[in-house]
């Protein structure tokens, strides 16, 4: 492995192509940490945005007018504002309204750090789209299928869990796929509030080494690979859930 890393030092000496995150262990650790931070942020946001989507779609069908209204206001608010502004709103506005906690050294610090706010903000951002996506999926389930379950004595909850959701999910998957890809790309915004994810760490490295070109190329490729893995995973999932003779 060392030989491999050292080869990049030679590459730099010989050609001027500077990839310090490969030959320099300090930069390498920064890059690896940044990569895993991006992966972690993505996974947390994927999970919570899907939960928000499922719950939101369910609340949208609520018989209570105000529940439906609140969900709709949420969706409009988060779809029609820039995600960076949302992130700043959470990180600066909401955060300042929250109580502070002792930091263990006698000082005070905000209750939630940058990572938590990025996770919350981006989950709500992607969740707003997911609500719409799941709702469209639920609406695509024929009423007659639901009725057949009802006639067999299924309760509303059993029908929702065993009939509506599985069918809605299959309909929603292609759009969900798109939105989740967008979400992973949008995690780079966390850079703006100094969450040490991949873009942030890359910035640190290019500031120290003045190798902006190399870092930009690297970032492009690594995000391409990361999103590629997600797309591949979602597509094979989609294939696995495919039912003969259902959909197209």
């Amino acid at each position, binding site marked *: 492995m060392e030989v491999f890393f050292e080869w990049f030092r030679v590459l730099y000496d010989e050609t001027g192509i500077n990839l310090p995150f490969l030959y320099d262990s300090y930069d390498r650790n920064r890059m690896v940490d940044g990569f895993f931070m991006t992966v972690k942020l993505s996974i947390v946001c994927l999970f919570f945005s899907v939960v928000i989507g499922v719950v939101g779609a369910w609340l949208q069908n609520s018989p209570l007018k105000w529940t439906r209204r609140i969900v709709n206001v949420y969706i409009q608010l988060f779809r029609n504002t820039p995600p960076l502004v949302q992130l700043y709103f959470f990180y600066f506005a909401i955060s300042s309204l929250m109580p502070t906690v002792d930091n263990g050294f006698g000082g005070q610090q905000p209750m939630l750090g940058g990572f938590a706010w990025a996770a919350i903000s981006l989950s709500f951002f992607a969740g707003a789209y997911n609500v719409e996506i799941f709702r469209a999926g639920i609406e695509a389930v024929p009423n007659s299928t639901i009725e057949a379950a009802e006639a067999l004595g299924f309760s509303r909850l*059993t029908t929702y869990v065993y009939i509506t959701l599985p*069918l809605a999910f299959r309909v929603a998957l292609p759009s969900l796929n798109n939105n989740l890809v967008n979400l992973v790309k949008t995690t780079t915004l966390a850079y703006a509030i100094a969450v040490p994810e991949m873009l942030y760490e890359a910035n640190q490295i290019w500031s120290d080494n003045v190798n902006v070109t190399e870092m930009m190329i690297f970032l492009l490729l690594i995000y391409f690979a990361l999103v590629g893995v997600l797309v591949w995973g979602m597509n094979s999932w989609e294939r696995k859930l495919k*039912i003969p*003779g259902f959909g197209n």
Partner: protein
Amino acid sequence: MAWTDKEPMVSIRDVHKSFGALEVLKGVSLDVMKGEVICIIGPSGSGKSTLIRCVNALNDIQSGSIKVEGQEVNDPHLNKLELRKKVGMVFQQYNLFPHKNALENIMMAPLLVLKDNKVEVEKLARSLIKKVRLEGKEESYPGELSGGQQQRVAIARSLAMNPDVMLFDEVTAALDPETVNEVLLTIKELAQDGMTCILVTHEMGFAKEVADHIYFTDRGVIVEHGPPTEFFEQAKDPRTIEFLGQIL
């Protein structure tokens, strides 16, 4: 005052049903004894589907009484689960669960509603598949079955709940002429086994053959009724005569 089979299994008394301002059933009464097969015929829009949907409470009624084995359906405290265990329903469009194969479609309600033992339920489901002559199609999804096959799965799915009375709403209307007979044969066998059946149908030959009693409805009222021979040969009401003239 427990119900006994000396009394009608289904007793419909002066039922009125409206959708908004449109009155669809205008005082319908009829009785079905245990083991009896009755056919309801009549022009499109006369309220046939609505009437049988009221029997298992898929539609509510404004006034009158519907009793199934003595249990009043027109009751805000109606135990719908108890009712639906007694009443099976088969729809024109089959309405199978598209994400479940034939066997699973049949097993679902006994498992999820009756919470029966899985091994027992599977045995039952396989015997029902045999009964509707679909051996070898256990693993097929609805999308892989012909209309007639799907409809027979739907019949088996209803029978799996071991109902006392079956409702059939124009179950052959969506089928190709070649497959109509296989479904009619299944229903005929069911009737011969002593199942109480309420059938809405346009198949006059079939009605003549299996029905114990035929009801002709038009614009929300029963115009004329009687045993098949009498009904088809000595219809008195001009509306019945006109209808039979068109259809035969």
